[in-house]
């Protein structure tokens, strides 16, 4: 088996693409041209790299908030809430209001059609 083919198979196992696609690709791989394999390799490799970056970001997130919790447990008076967190919290509240409005519209529509 060519090395490019074995790399594709390795990446395919880790990929989140559907099992139907995986099955088709596995069956098709022996008859794929170099160009077809190259495109597939680029796509699967890009997915794998991006997923690794996201995993790193997730770990950093856990570390970041773990550190904040340490500080809060130590002495909460000394921990300031950064401005960006206040903005995020207020955005969430605005989102909730929009949902209520949409639900109201749906209920109005139901009334209009007599349901």
């Amino acid at each position, binding site marked *: 088996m060519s090395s490019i083919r074995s790399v594709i198979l390795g990446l395919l196992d880790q*990929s*989140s*693409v*559907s*099992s*139907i*696609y995986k*099955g*088709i*690709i596995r*069956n*098709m791989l022996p*008859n*794929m041209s170099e160009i*077809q394999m190259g*495109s*597939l390799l680029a*796509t*699967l490799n*890009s*997915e794998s790299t*991006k*997923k690794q970056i*996201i*995993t790193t*970001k*997730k*770990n950093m*997130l*856990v570390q970041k*908030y*773990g550190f*904040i*919790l340490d500080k*809060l*447990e130590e002495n*909460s*008076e000394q*921990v300031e*809430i950064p401005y*960006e*967190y*206040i903005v*995020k*919290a207020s*955005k*969430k509240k605005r989102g909730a209001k929009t949902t209520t409005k949409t639900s109201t519209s749906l209920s109005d529509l139901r009334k*209009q*059609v*007599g*349901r």
Partner: protein
Amino acid sequence: MSILDKTLDFFGDTSEKVVENVVGLVERFSNAWEASKQGTSRFDKIKFFFAAFMAESEELTKEEQEVKDKASEEVGKQLLAMPDDQLTSSLKTSVVGDAQLDAKHAGVVDEVLGVATATWRQADKEAVENKKKKPGVYSGEIAKLLSALDPANKEFNEVDLGFDDKLKLISFGVKTLVNLKKEYSEKSEFLDAMKLFHEASKGGKYNLDFFKDPKLAEKFKVSGLQKLSAGKWLLTTISPILNKGRDEKDLVNIMDYIPAEDDKAPESGNKVPALSEISAAANQDAKVAAAVKHAEALKPLFINTPVEYADEGPSLSKMLIILADLQAGKSTGDTHTVIADLVFSVHTDDLETLSNRLS
């Protein structure tokens, strides 16, 4: 859903280590939250940080989903760009396994898979033209749903199709059957082809018999049909689709009107039996008979230009009975016969309309 479940849900599938870290962090947040309730200021701070943590988690989950969607889209695009023979031959391996087929079986398998491949390309193209989806996106969505319904999927029992997912799959399935019906336009020809395909796929990964598996029917459960309220089911599901020229509001009004006005003839002049007649029927067969009568009586209301089925066998009621039997696991006969009966119970034009409206 607990805060912990919700957070893990946000993170989606990920490595064990990350899950372990997130679990630890959420537990700490929960403990801190409880402890902080004694002091307002501390409680507020915990609340703010937890909200920020959840917001950032959500952003990352969204980013991860985008990466997955993009990969599916790109792979779908590349597969759609492959030549027909390459795609068909790859599908053939999954469908027939290692079986050595004679020329007759091999020919039909190639033809059927050729139609399936063409339908796949057609559906993706239509989604680009009509729904403004990017090439490969629709294919990716269908492939994901079909993969979830793969009998080999270890999590098959947990798969819970949403309403839109069911419609999307039914639309795609009907589209494929319509194209097969165009390929084999005589019922006997269709039946022969399905029989050969059925025989050829016995040892493959995707056996045609799965079509009749009650486990699959369970995933497409339609409550109205399950209760054999075929009349109601016709109104709520089939009629809006076959309906030519009415809008949803009319249908809602008709639905309200019919059960209440037992003896009053609707605008078509047909007398419509009340749904209570179906539920009051003494046994299952009588319920089916009442439901079919109901469905037949309602049919002219929704098909403004009635289609003559003379050359294609019975009518819509036949389709409802086949579907009701499939759902109840009562379907008898070979899978290929059931499929042929289903496909030839309704006019091709109506099948196409059904597929387009559901997509």
